[in-house]
């Protein structure tokens, strides 16, 4: 699998793009030429390539390059943290549900069915509206939406793996259920989960930016790509770069994750058409 990944140009390209963007975002305090929240009415809406502002300024005179760098930290965290939470909770729920079967499985599945019965945006919007707009609530809402998908995926895989001979053998040897799930079942379902997590990360980055675009995620003056896009919406005809640049950043990260996720799926699927 590692050799196939290393030979896949898409995988390498995806990792490089995401890696570079993550690195410059982490190094924002060092690389950022200005304070991302510094307002200067004298230099409002400076164009790209302006002498002191490489990517121009927004309607409050804030440097767009600085806000993109600092915004990357927020956008990446808000986009990736839900995946990490959903991975932990979803894998646990799915493993319990798939391995125990019976009433426990039924209850968990019905709860997941209800969550999956909502369009993702609708559920996230409803949750954030109830809890209040903000980054932490947006992370929670997206994590909840993603958890159901992870749990479903893991349950399906566990249902298949639990019937395999090596699991039966472990049971016959007297191993506890928790040890069987941890040591034997989970390692054999991790492959599709990792692929799904990578592809889901690409989606949640966009999802999180979308909530900020609607005013339900990052709040002003926090620099965040979705919020920047929303702020630039009313300036399309006079300063299109204000909305365009954050959108390009979101597109590049999501594309990089999708390229890597696709390559990972092809590398782990022996029947993949190439």
């Amino acid at each position, binding site marked *: 699998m590692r050799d196939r990944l290393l030979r896949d140009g898409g995988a390498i390209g995806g990792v490089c793009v995401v890696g570079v963007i993550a690195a410059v975002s982490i190094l924002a305090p060092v690389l950022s030429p200005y304070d991302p929240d510094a307002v200067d009415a004298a230099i409002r809406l400076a164009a790209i390539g302006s002498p002191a502002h490489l990517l121009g300024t927004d309607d409050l005179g804030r440097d767009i390059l600085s806000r993109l760098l600092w915004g990357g930290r927020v956008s990446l965290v808000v986009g990736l943290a839900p995946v990490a939470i959903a991975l932990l909770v979803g894998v646990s729920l799915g493993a319990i549900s798939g391995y125990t079967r019976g009433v426990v499985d039924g209850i968990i599945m*019905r709860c997941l069915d209800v969550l999956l019965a909502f369009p993702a*945006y609708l559920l996230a919007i*409803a949750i954030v509206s*109830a809890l209040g707009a903000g980054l932490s609530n947006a992370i929670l809402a997206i994590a909840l939406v993603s958890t159901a998908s992870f749990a479903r995926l893991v349950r399906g895989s566990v249902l298949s793996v639990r019937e395999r001979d090596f699991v039966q053998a472990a049971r016959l040897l007297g191993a506890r259920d928790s040890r069987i799930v941890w040591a034997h079942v989970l390692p054999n379902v991790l492959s599709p989960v990792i692929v799904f997590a990578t592809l889901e990360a690409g989606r949640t980055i966009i999802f999180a930016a979308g909530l900020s675009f609607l005013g339900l995620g990052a709040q002003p003056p926090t620099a965040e790509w*979705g919020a920047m896009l929303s702020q630039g919406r009313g300036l399309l005809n006079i300063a299109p770069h204000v909305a365009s640049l954050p959108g390009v950043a979101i*597109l590049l990260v999501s594309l990089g994750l999708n390229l890597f996720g696709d390559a990972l799926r092809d590398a782990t699927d022996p029947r993949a058409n190439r």
Partner: protein
Amino acid sequence: MTAFIVRRILASVVVLFGVSIVVFLTLKFIPGDAAYVLAGPNATAQEIELVRQSLGLDQPVPVQYITWLGRALRGDLGRSIELHEPVLALVLSRYGNTLILAASAMAFASITGVLAGALAALRLHTVVDRVVMLVALTANSTPSFWLGLALILVFSLGLHLLPSSGMVSARGDGGGVDFLQHLVLPSVTLGAISAALIARMTRSSLLEVLTQEYVLVARAKGLRERLLVRRHALKNALLPVLTVMGLQMGSLLGGAVITETIFTWPGIGLQLYRGIALRDVPLVQGAALVVATSFVAINLVVDLLYSYLDPRIRYS
């Protein structure tokens, strides 16, 4: 088959029951006192308490839920705090506009996706295949809100070809052509990601079908490739794609919130967004319930249709 249909419908009813609980409880937690909002800022404590009792807000939460559910089943979703009109009438008046947008986006996604996917499969490993798949991957990675703004920038503000907001022009004749012009950009924005998904699914499915034995036999017998694809391969390849299309229809309904906000399309998504901003809880509850119910209904129809087309499904 009947038993399968009954089982699926019963499962959907159980899910809808759960949906109603989630909608009710989620919006119950919205900060603020609905009785205070309705009574007005100048109301006395006694007046606010009277309003609270008339709305049943002094009852325990389970009792409030049962009362709310009973009214909802009779078509009474309350009155909008902001607009003072029945919520169901408000929601249904906008629902048709969202359905039009979603159906139009689906049509765009299906036609574009199937054609692109089939082209990529039939030109496997060529430049055409790689370009189509790269475009599909890029579309799948593009935020819809950014795509919408980019389309407005190019086609409305740049080329002045298409309008950027609303359903009909304020100064236009409101006729069919005007309406269709307003529909183009929102439909493309909403349908782009689905088109990408359908293209990839079609390519994958058609490639699998083209390796089947009956296709090889047809080729060996001398059947022309175009006829082979159109008459035999594509029909079978589209079966799993139909499932994806059906499920995407439900997602389009939910994803319409952002598209309707960008293009000020007067649908249920825009109404939901405005209701949230104004803390109009009955309106948000009603809109959320209608959209979620539609989502469940569409998934049910897709499941039943798929089991009708593929008999193996109903026995699994």
